[in-house]
């Protein structure tokens, strides 16, 4: 990790200094080493190690952050042009927004492609550096496994060395992976202008150890009563903080229906249980066929609700009913819900026929 971070910083600095890119979207660390958040860097000197980080807690998917960053930059340029015009200067003298460098892990590139498909970002304004990823850690799991008062976490190959105020601990990385990393789709970048991967894995290797659909299958095999109890239990914990929506790279609406008083489904924190469920069903439905299964929703949920199980149900159904489909596999795909097969599509009654419990 140390090595790759160095390479990333070096490359970002080069591109910034050469004027190839105007800003860099990466990760920075907060008060705790595991408290990593996305950040925009505009100066080479800000890219010092320590400020710019790439460690086992860089789970967040930066592709979504491109939308707002690019919008802000374009708006700033347009405002400057308008000001110039008002002052009688030539607006064409105002430089354009330039490119934005973004670091994307393999799974993040699916989201990037999906955003390209949906015209949410302009790829001519982006420079993508694909960075190698060997799975990101879930701090909650580490804490659950007994580490508290964490001061530092050091990546050491397959291990994480955790320094705490009560002494040092060591964890096998595979035991503390984020859910999404345990079911990793693969280590191949689906889009990148260049890739930084000092020790590339052999082709096809690096997929997560867990079956992605195991959770969904398990639920499907339960009785309806059990499923109902399961989801009631899970979703009743929802506090409607909208973190899942805000982190989701498919949820990029200018105005979400749940914030829109004209939509008829808007709601605030104080809601009925039905509204909680409705929110999650509708959200999953809105991203059905567009969800790349990046797992951000579950990762960011402060209540630990396994939201990915909703999205994966749709993914599983889509694959079973309409053929295998991976959103974000490539730019320009036609999502299953804006598509049909007149002859072969199943009837909705299949839900009854499937003989679920």
């Amino acid at each position, binding site marked *: 990790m140390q090595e790759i971070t160095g390479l990333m910083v070096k490359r970002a600095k080069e591109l910034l200094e050469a004027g190839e890119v105007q800003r860099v979207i990466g990760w920075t660390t907060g008060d705790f080493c595991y408290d990593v958040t996305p950040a925009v860097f505009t100066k080479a000197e800000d890219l010092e190690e320590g400020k710019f980080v790439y460690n086992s807690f860089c789970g967040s998917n930066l592709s979504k952050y491109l939308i707002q960053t690019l*919008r802000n930059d*374009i*708006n700033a340029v*347009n405002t400057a042009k308008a000001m110039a015009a008002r002052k009688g200067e030539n607006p064409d003298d105002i430089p354009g927004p330039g490119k934005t460098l973004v670091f994307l892990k393999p799974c993040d590139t699916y989201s990037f492609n999906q955003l390209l*498909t*949906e*015209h*949410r970002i302009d790829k001519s304004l982006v420079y993508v550096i694909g960075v190698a990823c060997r799975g990101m850690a879930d701090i909650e799991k580490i804490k659950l496994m007994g580490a508290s008062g964490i001061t530092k976490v050091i990546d050491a190959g397959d291990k994480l060395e955790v320094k705490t105020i009560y002494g040092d601990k060591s964890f096998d990385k595979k035991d503390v992976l984020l859910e999404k990393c345990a079911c990793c789709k693969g280590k191949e970048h689906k889009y990148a202008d260049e890739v930084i991967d000092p020790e590339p894995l052999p082709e096809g290797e690096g997929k997560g150890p867990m079956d992605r659909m195991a959770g969904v299958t398990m639920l499907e095999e339960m009785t309806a009563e059990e499923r109902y109890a399961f989801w009631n239990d899970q979703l009743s914990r929802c506090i409607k903080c909208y973190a899942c929506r805000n982190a989701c790279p498919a949820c*990029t*609406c*200018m*105005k*979400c*229906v749940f914030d*829109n008083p*004209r*939509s*008829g489904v808007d709601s605030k924190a104080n809601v009925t249980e039905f509204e909680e469920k409705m929110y999650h069903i509708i959200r999953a439905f*809105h*991203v059905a066929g567009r969800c790349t299964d990046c797992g951000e929703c579950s990762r960011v949920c402060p209540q630990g609700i396994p939201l990915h199980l909703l999205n994966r149900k749709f993914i599983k159904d889509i694959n079973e009913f309409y053929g295998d489909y991976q959103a974000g596999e490539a730019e320009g795909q*036609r*999502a299953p*819900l*804006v*598509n049909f097969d007149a002859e072969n599509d199943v009837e909705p009654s299949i839900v009854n026929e499937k003989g679920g419990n």
Partner: protein
Amino acid sequence: MQRIGVFVCWCGSNIAATVDVDRVVEAVKTDPNVVHAENYQYMCSEAGQKLIRDAITEHQLTGIVVCSCSPRMHEQTFRKTAEAAGLNQYMVEIANIREQCSWIHKDKDEGTEKAIILARAAIAKVCLNAPLQPGQSKVVKRALIIGGGIAGIQSAIDIADAGYKVDIVERTPTIGGKMAQLDKTFPTLDCASCIVTPKMVECAQHPNITIYAYSEVEEVKGFVGNFNVKIRKKARYVDETKCTGCAVCTEKCPSRKGRNEFNCGLDTRGAVYIPFAQAIPNVATIDATNCLHFKTGKCGICAKNCSANAIDFEQKDEIFEEQYGAIVVATGYQISDVTKFDEYQYTKHPDVVTSLELERLMNAAGPSKGVLVKPSDGKHPHDIVFIQCVGSRDISGRGKCYCSKICCMYTAKHAMLIREKYPDVNVHVFYIDVRTPGKNFDEFYRRAVEQYNVDYIKGMVGKVYENEKGGLTVQAVDLISNERVMLDTDMVVLAAAIEPSDGVKHIASMLTASIDTNNFLTEAHPKLRPVESPTAGVFLSGVCQGPKDIPETVSQAGAAAVKVVGLLAKDYLVTNPCTAHTDETMCNGCSSCERVCPYGAISYIDKEVMDKGVREVRRIAQVNGALCQGCGACTVACPSGAMDLKGFSNKQIMAEVDAICK
């Protein structure tokens, strides 16, 4: 706050018998938006409409709800009423308390309760209605007729005579259809050819009619007033502009294995052929599957003998595009498959024929030159049995559930003609019922029985089999005497059911015209709009809509033509304003809507948008109101709800849901 008026119609006793209209009025008055409510015997009557107009003025209504019959019936009526009183016509909602309430429920309490709920739903919706202004779209003054049988021919001539351009697309090499194959027509017994061929010629010579024979409709896009149609002109391998129809090639052609479709396959024809002497256009066609040139690369005798140099083996299918304002479907019928009824030996014995085959056997231009002979040995038959309803009125699932309507009459005609020409031939007819309503029809049938002594036997035939003499034995039960009947006969004629032509399903789906379970095209209203399809700009002519005889077909063809003329006479059409539209501040530019739009009505532009004080350029969906037909597919594809449908907005539908589920 809206000022809504509610008008509850009794529809005589149609509604009032099952719905307590007074209670409905009282109940809706409690709605805070309702400022006026009343009931009346017939709201659609002039007096009823005046009531509405007066109330709109008196109470300054901003919207009205009429609780009456289906909106499919009188929505237009009440919209006009509102308009006349100065209220925008889209501020009208109908609560369907007849078809979907009073007519299906018997209990008055139940009916009344439901009527109140339906009224409340309509009130909830109308409160959210917005005044809409219909737009305009230009009308292309040209009509397309699909099918060149008597229905298509008549429609074409009538439209052309009114001064509009008409194109006929016919998939076979000639127009004329089934009527050209018939011998005589009932009940006048005039010769079918003698009356249809002049019409065919008239088509060919009419300055406003263009015939595309041996052509098929490939694709239909657009909408009423402006259809964009792709037509495939199939390769005839004969240059139509050069061929003189001299028919030398057809005589010289060494391949004689082609099934002669015109004679129902009773004889064969050359690979290059003209279906019949009076064919229009009178040009030859090469059937590539039988042509030796296409099979072996040799031959070419036709080309050598053609003095006009019209043979062109290199010819390719040609696809061209044309715009039309209206389309008439006149695809006609075909004889249904009788092989499913093989107890009648149709596939096994050549002397078991269908009525259409008999028609050819009796026709002077037919395979036997009009002399009635048995197909098996060419000998004169002495006894003929007709079996009615083969595949019609069938409840076994093998055939059609409907009555094919024409069989009783043509069988009487056949029987009569045979008895007239060959008095020595005994004719028996096995029937379920003899149905002869129509001008001079029953008289005609009675003549067959009384004057020509045709032996009508009520009863269905159980089976037909070949007897030891090589003839046929018909086994049946006479339902009147209740006796088993065993009849030795020489020929059996099956009155096979007629069904819509097999291409009609494809055509209907291209036109988005609906078809019923028997593949007949559905009319916009079974009684009041019998020649219009529910799809605007698509009209129905002939048997494609339902079984009918020639006079009925011709009158329907004329009616369809009048509808077309009425449409083409307009320069502009009023377009449906219930179209999709985008809220620019909410649109993400994601293209989901564009992908599901069947009309290509959605495009994207980069547009400056002012949102929350920020001015920025965004990729925004734009709906072309002239192309949008208002299906609403885009509104559900749009995750943000930026795309909404006027007249059926998200809020309106949810308000209805709320009102119903209260």
